[in-house]
């Protein structure tokens, strides 16, 4: 019997799974895609916000502050890089300064500390490349950056190590309360019976809630587009730089990534299609215009890629985290838009409390292992560590991705560990192979070979991101007509 079914393998679902894995419970996590962090969690600003943005009294405000504080411990336990590099909200005109003062008051009310407004001089000291019209900034040293995919993978791995069952390619096709007081959750392959179901389905949480007969709400996808710059330009900026916010969004930021690149974005446009992660040329123009207001000298010739992500915006405009009053055992965790990543650890705590209130008995395991080790990042090691690693396993001497210096040893580890990579994107996000300036041009054929060998499948079956995204179409000569002519139709 299953004690808890979690729907959704984003950062929230995986955080909840990991928290539940501390207890003597049978937990199943269902993910419709072929990997964790395949939706909103993989394409966002990757910022752990300080917590001054949300209105005091909202769940967003409360959980952001608590969540931010939990990151040091979680990242230490899971060996996930996390840096509190601080954030700046920049006023580029005098009117903006009033907004900064409001934000400062709001931040204080929310409990953000330390938090202060700094002068133009101090600002330029910290960020020499900022717009020369900037006149002040709100400085929050507790803001941080992280790789949200790496965090989610780490959470999933640690949850799996501690006994959570994770099922990929398992979209929920039906969920309902049964007569025996249990809930039934159905995927195309399996049916689970469980007293508790947690709906962490991200953009699709409204549909799952409706399917279960629970409270109605709507999730609107709000698209944000991004451009990523080459690591070569990493000295452009040092902190997370926001413009003075508007009613709708924190605005287009200029922000370092934990891996040493920096990005600009996101814009903020409500759309209809929850699958539409396409980048638009208008969107790219919009974020360039926006980012230039903060850093006029953007090195646009060094853009290496663009992407778009969708925020899951609920009609309440706050997180929806509650047990259903209509369907016993069904718990909604919906509308987790920004600051969702920052709040995720606190959301998981809150869900555990709700589960207890709803009658789940929690007994701590005596063999819970809170620690998980990262894949050895060859490029970050010193020479002694590298020598030792190659002696131990020569595959770490074989560089597969030139741009990011990723070795075969790392790629094999990414495949073989729990919740291992099964696709090119899975490898890319776990090891950075293919994320550099050549965007996989050189390494993708090599990675396909390794995936094929490790998984025991034909290279024709290797995918970019799950079934339907196979990379190769056939063997050479497969498409030549039987009479030997080339296709002239």
């Amino acid at each position, binding site marked *: 019997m299953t004690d808890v079914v979690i729907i959704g393998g984003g950062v929230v679902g995986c955080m909840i799974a990991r928290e539940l894995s501390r207890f003597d419970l049978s937990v199943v996590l269902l993910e419709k895609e072929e990997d964790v962090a395949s939706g909103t969690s993989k394409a966002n600003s990757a910022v752990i916000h300080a917590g001054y943005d949300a209105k005091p009294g909202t769940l967003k405000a409360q959980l952001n502050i608590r969540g931010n504080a939990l990151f040091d411990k979680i990242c230490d336990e899971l060996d996930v890089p996390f840096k509190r590099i601080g954030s700046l909200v920049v006023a580029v005109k005098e009117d903006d300064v009033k907004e900064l003062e409001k934000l400062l008051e709001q931040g204080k009310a929310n409990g953000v500390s330390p938090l202060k407004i700094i002068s133009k001089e101090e600002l330029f000291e910290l960020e020499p490349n900022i717009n020369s019209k900037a006149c002040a900034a709100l400085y929050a040293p507790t803001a941080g950056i992280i790789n949200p995919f790496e965090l989610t993978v780490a959470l999933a791995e640690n949850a799996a190590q501690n006994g959570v069952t994770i099922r990929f390619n398992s979209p929920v096709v039906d969920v309902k309360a049964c007569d025996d007081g249990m809930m039934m959750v159905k995927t195309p392959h399996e049916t689970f019976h469980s007293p508790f179901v947690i709906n962490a389905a991200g953009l699709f949480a409204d549909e799952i809630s409706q399917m279960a007969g629970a409270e109605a709400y709507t999730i609107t996808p709000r698209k944000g587009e991004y451009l990523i710059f080459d690591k070569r330009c990493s000295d452009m900026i040092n902190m997370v730089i926001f413009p003075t916010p508007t009613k709708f969004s924190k605005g287009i930021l200029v922000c370092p990534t934990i891996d040493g690149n920096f990005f600009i974005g996101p814009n903020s446009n409500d759309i209809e299609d929850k699958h539409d992660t396409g*980048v638009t040329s208008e969107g*790219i123009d919009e974020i360039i215009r926006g980012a230039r207001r903060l850093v006029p000298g953007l090195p646009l010739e060094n853009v290496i890629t663009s992407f778009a992500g969708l925020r899951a915006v609920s009609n309440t405009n706050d997180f929806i985290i509650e047990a259903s009053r209509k369907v016993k055992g069904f718990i909604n965790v919906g509308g987790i838009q920004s600051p969702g990543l920052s709040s995720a650890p606190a959301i998981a705590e809150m869900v555990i409390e709700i589960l207890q209130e709803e009658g789940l008995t929690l007994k701590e395991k005596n063999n819970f292992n809170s620690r998980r080790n990262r894949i050895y990042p060859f490029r970050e090691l010193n020479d002694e560590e590298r020598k030792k690693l190659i002696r131990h396993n020569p595959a770490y*001497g074989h560089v597969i991705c030139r741009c990011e210096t990723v070795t075969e040893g790392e790629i094999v580890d990414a495949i073989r560990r729990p919740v291992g990579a099964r696709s090119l994107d899975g490898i890319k996000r776990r090891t950075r192979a293919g994320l550099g300036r050549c965007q996989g041009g050189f390494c993708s054929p090599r990675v396909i070979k390794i995936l094929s060998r490790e998984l025991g499948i034909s290279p024709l079956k290797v*995918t970019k991101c799950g079934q339907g995204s*196979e990379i190769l179409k056939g063997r050479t000569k497969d498409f030549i007509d039987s009479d030997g002519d080339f296709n002239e139709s």
Partner: protein
Amino acid sequence: MRVRELVIIGGGPAGLSAAVEAKKLGVEDVLIIDRESEPGGILKQCIHTGFGLHVFKEELTGPEYAERFIAEAQERGIEIMLDTMVIELTDDRRILAVNSRDGLVELKARAVILAMGCRERTRGAINIPGFRPSGIFTAGTAQYFINIEGYMPGKEVVILGSGDVGLIMARHLTLEGAKVKCVAEIMPYSNGLTRNIVQCLQDFNIPLLLNHTVVNIHGKKRVEGVTIAEVDLNRKPRMETARYVSCDTLLLSVGLIPENELSRMAKVQIDEVTGGPVVDQSMQTTIEGIFACGNVLHVHDVVDLVTIEARVAARGAADFLKQKKKRIRPATVPVIPGEGLRYVLPQRIDLDGALEETQNFFMRSVKPMDRGRLLIQSDRGVVMSKILKFIRPSEMISIKVKREILQQSNCLKISLCEGSENGD
């Protein structure tokens, strides 16, 4: 730390030619380091013919061309360290490399030749809107899949960009049974060699759509089609001309970028236009004892010119190694591109260094011209001029300049003026 005389980074056509030449010139200890399991670089996957017309006076395939140099390198006892990636290079020529056999390899080289080649510009670099599905390849990656691995990356293909690799792949995919629907080129002219346009597109009835680009990519998991549109004079798409072309694959042939990560680490000055090091006539970079040749220096259209350039670099390195005492920073003549030219190489002439009777300069025009006048000006005025015909940005221009001219100049500017009256 082991000291080696000459270390060449990269075992493609540039590295191999340079190694053989250096050995011929008396450099005894020559080491090539290459990251792949076989030498030859990109030539390994260029199984079409057309290589060697200049150097060998015969038409070879890429692997055959490489094989000649590999065989000669072996005969001459040149060491090639394979499956080895150089991860660090310093300005005092210390090299850190890694492989599975030896772990970390630390070397000190008395001279270095950079021959790392180039990589392909990607979709991100040109910001094509749309989804990011499977089925988008750079032309060179597609070539690798077909010619090295024996797999077809797609069945119905649209090619964006008309660089030579893309043109070659249009023909090759067709011969392999795929359908190449069109080649879209944003410029009003192709970036490939004329012979490739004729032999790879026209001979196979593949349309070349000039002034066209891809404005959207469709398909969430796999490419299902692309939207192409004409562009205006400012290269902005005219959306009223947009049309959908179904395909399962989009191939990109939108330019090559010299791979100078190691050069930058060694503080070598990079020419922002070529993307490669700034060099003098011996192919020496701005860092003493570090030379460069081939596509790492600037992107070439034919391999024969790479070989010739590599020989120059080898001679430069050999001369450098023979020098008894360290030279004081020499007086140099800067050579700058004027109107009509994107770049000129070498970018400077070292007057204290060896100067041949005539010095070759290589350059590319900014646009196609039926006829133009190449003007060489020094601080003393126009010192040389030459009429050129059928000028294409894709076809490198070379010109020989007499030694005396260089010796009498403090700086040189080379420009290209379109047209020019008859009778000149």
